[in-house]
């Protein structure tokens, strides 16, 4: 019976393009990154639940100005958690924190200046998507929301850090993609809350957690394709296919997140939080598995 790893090795050619790229340098499946990522995801969910619990006791509802201030504070916390956990735990060969922070800020900037304006002002999705049948909602989620958001994150990584010498491992695509997604999601969450004209504090915390978790996952997924494109000969359709898959994932999950929390008059954002947590878990487990598989294949 043949070794399954050997079988995989024969079915898919994974060869570094540049001989000077020592396999160990581009292959490492940095376990500390996955650990820190899992811890941050759990902390973000716990944080949102704690804020909701506290808010339900105190019955705090915020107006537009209060919501702006609270949104900024609540949004900074997942970002700070991610950055802190990442640098406390990722000691193997951490990415320069200025670069990671820079990509995170660029992700937020892309959401503010390109992503949200195209979706909300050009396509005006918010004005018609809910008035249409479910399949039209799904198509719009994928082809408008998914593609615009994922291309923004893709562009942030692909046109900047991709060409930098610090982008020297496949997993860097995932790290920088997740950072871009986190920044993108943070701004998206704040804008959503401001546009809603205020909300209960607990609902706001849950919504921020949902958006940041989901967007960081989508960003990591997009980044996986970018990371492999840099170091493996994947063919000319690899990146378009990867971006399309990420847009499909984004659109599908965005649609599901909107559906699961609303049943008639009952609005239960916790269902969406669970769905976002599961999405993040599935996506990052898949990415960890893929990265580990590549590392094993090339170490043979």
């Amino acid at each position: 019976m043949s070794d399954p790893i050997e079988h995989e090795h024969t079915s898919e050619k994974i060869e570094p393009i540049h001989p000077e790229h020592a396999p160990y340098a581009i292959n490492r499946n940095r376990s500390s990154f996955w650990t820190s990522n899992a811890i941050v995801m759990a902390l973000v969910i716990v944080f949102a639940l704690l804020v909701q619990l506290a808010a339900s006791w105190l019955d705090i509802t915020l107006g537009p100005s209060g919501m702006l201030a609270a949104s900024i504070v609540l949004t900074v916390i997942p970002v700070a958690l991610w950055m802190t956990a990442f640098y406390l735990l990722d000691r193997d060969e951490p990415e320069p924190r200025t670069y990671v922070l820079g990509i995170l800020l660029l992700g937020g900037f892309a959401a503010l200046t390109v992503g949200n304006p195209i979706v909300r002002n050009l396509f005006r999705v918010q004005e018609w998507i809910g008035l249409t049948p479910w399949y039209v909602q799904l198509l719009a989620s994928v082809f408008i929301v998914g593609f615009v958001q994922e291309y923004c994150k893709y562009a942030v990584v692909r046109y900047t850090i991709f060409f930098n010498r610090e982008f020297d491992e496949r997993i860097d695509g995932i790290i920088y993609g997740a950072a871009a997604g986190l920044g993108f999601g943070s701004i998206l969450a704040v804008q959503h809350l401001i546009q809603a004209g205020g909300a209960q504090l607990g609902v706001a915390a849950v919504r921020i957690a949902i958006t940041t978790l989901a967007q960081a996952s989508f960003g990591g997924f997009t980044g996986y394709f970018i990371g492999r494109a840099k170091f493996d000969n994947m063919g000319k359709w690899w990146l378009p296919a990867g971006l399309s898959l990420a847009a499909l994932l984004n659109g599908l999950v965005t649609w599901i997140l909107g559906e699961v929390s609303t049943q008639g008059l009952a609005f239960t954002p916790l269902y969406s939080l669970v769905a976002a947590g599961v999405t993040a878990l599935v996506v990052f487990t898949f990415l960890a598995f893929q990265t580990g598989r590549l590392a094993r294949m090339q170490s043979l």
Partner: protein
Amino acid sequence: MINTKKSTGWFWSGEEPEWLVVITVLVALVIGGLVMYLATGRTQTARVNKLSVRYPAQWVLPGEAQATSLEAQDLASQASVRVSIVGNLDPAAPVTMEDLVTMRAFELAQATELFRVLATKAVQVDAQAATEISYAFVLDSAVSSYLNAVPKVIRGVDYLVPYQGQIYLISYQDDANSWQQNVFEQIRSSIKLH
């Protein structure tokens, strides 16, 4: 030192030419535009003076559209949206939002049965300060106690929006047991002040 893989010609040539990505995104957005075109064809716009609101195209107008009011209704459910001008702002006789809320609640209490105001709050409607009134009442359409219609609890959300000297009312009502939150949210977010 590790060299970067693509330094020149990465957009037009190379193993993963970037132009293919850009084309893919453009094609997706064209499809998205087509979806938008088809979807917005399934909605109608109600316009009352300087305010417009979008609603599903299959909804009907039970009455004649007037210059100051318009109502659209879903025949398959109890959902309806009504847009009207309820008054003019007179600098000589200023009214507060609280006065307007009280007047609206009084009007609804007279026109419906078992009317209850659930909540009122200050909100923004298309970047304009407004007041939201959530309420519920019982709708008993039966004219005889032997008819088969069960009284229904109707939930409503009204927005009172002072804008350019006039007070606009946007009223959304639906059966509380089959409340369509996404339809309500879309109608609310489609409100535009021109």
